[in-house]
């Protein structure tokens, strides 16, 4: 797939670049390490809750943050162990 077709071919990649930089620089200015602290605490909390019900490898829990301007989303990806025959 050619991603450029999504953005049109008339030099619109420059406005994508502009937009990305605006978001990034605004975030870097405001970055006080709170994201990292938040992610770490969330991770611990989620691990504790899930571990009550299933055995999980702490390494198989992935938290991903995606900042897009005003909205920040959090993705949680937990790999469950192969289900035991009950």
């Amino acid at each position: 797939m050619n991603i450029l077709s999504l953005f049109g071919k008339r030099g619109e990649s420059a406005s994508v670049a502009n937009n990305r930089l605006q978001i990034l620089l605004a975030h870097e200015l405001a970055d006080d390490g709170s994201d990292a602290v938040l992610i770490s605490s969330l991770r611990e909390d989620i691990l504790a809750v899930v571990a009550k019900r299933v055995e999980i490898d702490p390494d198989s829990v992935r938290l991903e943050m995606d900042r897009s301007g005003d909205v920040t989303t959090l993705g949680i990806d937990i790999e469950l162990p192969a289900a035991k025959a009950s």
Partner: protein
Amino acid sequence: MSNATVVVVTSGKGGVGKTTTTAAIASALAKEGYQVCAIDFDVGLRNLDLIMGAERRVVFDLVNVVRGEASIKQALVRDKKLNNLYLLPASQTRDKDALTEEGVEAVISELRGYFDWVICDSPAGIERGATLAMRHADEAIIVSNPEVSSVRDCDRIIGLLDAKTKIAEDGGRMPKHLMITRYDTDRAKTGDMLATDDVVDILSVPLIGVVPESKDVLKASNVGLPVTLSDENSPPAKAYQEATRRLLGENIPVTIPEEKKSLFGKLFKGRAA
């Protein structure tokens, strides 16, 4: 358990295309199905995240990992399009000594266990950041523009690769590959630019690829996609795909993919030459 091949992408001079090359080669390898991790060693001036379009998803970085503030798995950012391609971002700290030699060694040896390929994007210069990036490499890709200062800096980097790396200290010799970027076929033809053979002769490093000067590289960086993913049929993407096949051990002749010119352009160039 895999045992990754660690490749450093280095050049000495800044702005020649190390980050573009790292992103392009890493994603081309991932497209071949390998588990790939790209590491940004440019502490304080990270940019590989931007070129790979992952800048909004960076939470932890290499320095957090080295300091034990995050595990490697927490810090790795997975690519949006290729789920076997990961980025380990550099930190934006101003602390130049944030990376320690032992820390980097531990990170690389852990990554060796998870991946097939680890591609290290070196910072410019010949200081600590650059020597740490090359230290544990198994192979080096040396990026040069066909331009005198770039070639001279590559020569210095080759000296470092043969002196300051683990392989060199153990009495071995670092396998090296030369990647010439921003190559302008027309200017080389008219003798206004160093030709690939000139650069290969001077540096005595075998050629892995020649990437033509192309507007596609800027377009790809604008939208945050490695050039090998943004438009696979563009000349730079083809050049990087070929280079990747050579890195994988295929023995194919080096070609210089060209921009498609209009018929008018071709006729005009033909007359002018």
